[in-house]
């Protein structure tokens, strides 16, 4: 099956500029996640969608970050305006709806990520 597609792969912007990332999850995956991964740390969940509804956005800095998932498929994550501390890899992942005894072979599938550098 095709993997999770993300673009762009790399992005360099100046602080206070805006940037947008795009993600196309695996077909049939109801749940989509955006993670921020700072070098040397584990992924930090920014937002989780179930179809096109938001399940969890408690760690999303809503004054500058926004995300949407149109028609329950593709998703975009936007930062406006960017700060130096936003420099990180932004990972998109998707998964089947629920984890249970019948689908323990399926975890998250991550995209290759977008490496953002804010200068």
């Amino acid at each position, binding site marked *: 099956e095709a993997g999770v597609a993300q673009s762009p792969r790399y992005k360099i912007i100046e602080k206070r500029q805006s940037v947008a990332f795009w993600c196309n999850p695996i077909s049939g995956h109801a749940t989509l996640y955006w993670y921020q991964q700072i070098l040397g740390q584990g992924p930090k969940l920014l937002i989780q969608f179930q179809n096109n509804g938001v*399940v969890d956005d408690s760690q999303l800095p809503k004054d500058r970050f926004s995300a949407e998932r149109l028609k329950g498929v593709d998703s975009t994550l936007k930062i406006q305006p960017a700060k130096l501390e936003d420099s990180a890899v932004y990972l998109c992942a998707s998964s089947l709806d629920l984890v249970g005894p019948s689908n*323990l072979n399926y975890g*998250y599938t*991550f995209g290759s990520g977008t490496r953002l550098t804010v200068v």
Partner: protein
Amino acid sequence: QQPVQSPQAVILREGEDAVINCSSSKALYSVHWYRQKHGEAPVFLMILLKGGEQKGHDKISASFNEKKQQSSLYLTASQLSYSGTYFCGTGSDGNNRKLIWGLGTSLAVNP
């Protein structure tokens, strides 16, 4: 609460074994294990649900002790391809997809 992984880093020679632990202060429903190679996305290894089960494939296996709120990942007869950072993600409620991730354990396997 973020799970604690130990050790932070380990260096092995090819063929040696390693154990990576993941401990939580919260009751756990599930533990996920992923491996991330430098510059790449994390790759799914396995999921364990509460019930004290043990799973494995090839020479990588894991156990889950829900009473101790801990999971351990066992790497047997390590191969060069095992190098990378191992992350555990813990789920504490019925929504197993709301994971909290550890900081990772860096594993280097040398010839």
